[in-house]
């Protein structure tokens, strides 16, 4: 097996997803701006990957056999830094420097500065190609680590994504796992209005990928999807399309175009922190703005 289950309870994972959200709000206040809603949509995915699924050795960030993670939607790095600190890659107090002059931690992540970060990102559309390279390298060097790439749905308009998808299918890179944070919005509107990405399942399948589609906020479903990843030799790269809600967890942000980048201060900050601490409320489409 590539990565052993770490026997983490779903309630623990739920707590870590909450931690990702509250840290995002806290760090955004330091910066005076933050990518809240793009990070909230992938909080459960990040928690599941880093606290349960990935084979990691935080005391040895360069461990060659480790699973890799590429945050192609680099603007959600604000949710990844606290996880890496929490796992012990660096002292959590370093997060207090977030975005300040000379900090290791900017809005988009720099692998030269962030321990535990497998690749830099920020320019959308690149991450899946990085994953292709990581998977090819694993094959060439006889290592069976898995390479996970978190894609935004807006960046699926970038042509390079499909160059990478095509090559992954052609090369049969089974240890490459893409996760699409299908939160439905890019900056200027609903993806299906700005530039459609559906039918996404069929698109990936046509490029030779094995496809699963799940509720990306359901930790049990996420676990199930990871469990379903094939470890036998079927020779297909694997994608999990995670249907999510942009801004999930803070009602005013859910499916709102106003919070791709925002700044919570004063009472708003306190209210949102309290809302997050109370835990996720059921999401209903009536919340749509």
């Amino acid at each position, binding site marked *: 097996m590539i990565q052993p289950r770490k026997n983490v309870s779903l309630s623990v994972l739920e707590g870590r997803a909450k931690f990702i959200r509250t840290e995002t709000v806290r760090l955004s206040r330091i910066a005076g701006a933050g990518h809240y809603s793009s990070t909230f949509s992938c909080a459960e995915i990040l928690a599941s990957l880093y606290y349960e699924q990935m084979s990691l050795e935080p005391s040895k960030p360069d461990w060659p056999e480790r699973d890799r993670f590429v945050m192609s939607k680099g603007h959600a790095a604000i949710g990844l830094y606290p996880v890496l600190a929490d796992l012990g890659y660096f002292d959590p107090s370093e997060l207090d420097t977030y975005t300040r002059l000379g900090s290791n931690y900017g809005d988009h992540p720099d*692998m*030269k500065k962030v321990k535990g970060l497998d690749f830099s990102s920020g320019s959308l559309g*690149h991450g899946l*190609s990085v994953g292709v*390279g*990581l998977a090819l390298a694993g094959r*060439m060097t006889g290592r069976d680590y898995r390479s996970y790439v978190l894609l935004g749905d807006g960046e699926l308009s970038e042509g390079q994504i499909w160059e990478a998808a095509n090559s992954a299918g052609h090369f049969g890179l089974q240890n490459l796992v893409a996760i699409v944070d299908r939160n439905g919005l890019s900056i200027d509107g609903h993806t299906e209005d700005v530039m459609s990405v559906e039918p996404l399942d069929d698109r990936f399948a046509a490029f030779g990928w094995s496809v699963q589609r799940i509720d990306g906020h359901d930790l049990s479903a996420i676990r199930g999807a990871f469990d379903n990843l094939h470890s036998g030799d079927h020779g297909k790269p694997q994608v999990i399309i995670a249907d999510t809600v942009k801004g999930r967890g803070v009602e005013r942000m859910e499916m709102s175009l106003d919070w791709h980048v925002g700044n919570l201060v004063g009472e708003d900050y306190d209210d949102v922190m309290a809302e997050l601490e109370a835990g996720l409320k059921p999401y209903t489409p009536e919340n749509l703005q």
Partner: protein
Amino acid sequence: MTKDMQDESEIFRGTTTGSTRLRDPKSVRGTPKAGMPAFVLGEELADIADHDPRIVVATADLASANRTNDFRDRHPTRFVNFSIAEKNMITAAAGMASTGLIPYVATFASFAAILGAEAIRTDCAYPMQKVRILGSHSGMSMGFYGSSHHALEDLGMLRCMADLTVVCATDANHLRAILRASVEHPKAMYIRLGRGRDPVVYNEVPDIEFGRALRLREGTDLTIITCGSQVRASLDAAEALAKQGISVRVVDMFTIDQMDKDEIRAAVEETKAILTVEEHNITGGLGSAVAEELLELPRTTFRKHGVPDKYVEVGPPAALYASYRLDAVGITGVSRELLTKV
């Protein structure tokens, strides 16, 4: 080309150790003609890879044109053909490099450097990944294939990127030296190549150090600072000028973005004028880089010689070189014009 130019170029051709003429594309493939140097890229990389398991090679559907198929045949499991998807190739190479491999990715310079520029900056240079981008058939050496296939802007575009070392290979032995030295170089690299059957300048593999120019001919009247395809032509021009009583120093400034400032200073102090010669747009390339250094040095007589800031006509490469005075005849004339201003 006028008849006079043709006649003169015949004379100059006789002074070279290899032909200054570039061949039509058919002759690039297959068995090299007698006396022509072979495109050693794939063979040399395969030799290096025999002793270094980190070396991997990729191309974008041009394995026969750039002879990376020589590598493929010897190390098939360390070769990847990404087809016509250059950005994916360069970024994937960066991913491979992040695991400790050293990828050499080769395609035409127009696609490697110009199409791939953002992937080079964002995924190779900025994250300090040891990717070596090999841009072959650079400049206007693709001749009548036209401006889509020319790379007359690559040096200008790439030399302003931090943590990217930009070098030009002059001939087969020089390319061997660059490839050997590149293995342990800590930064990403762009290596600009000609069509592979380049006229001989170095009869042996030279000792090189990135950032240190190679002075190939001593002289006192003029220093020609050049690189790549124009080194042979400049040496031939220097030979012709010597017969006219003009003493010309020729410098192969093959590292473009860690320029050898000492060599430029020496040219200012020891010769009367400086001419830069490059197969590149006159804006942004070697001449501009030298000019930037000259601004901080005592005033000297200086001229940049290259391709004007335009998209060139189609034509056989040799005709284009003659037309833009980027052959021995042309460089001889430009040199004489410059020296009238000293």
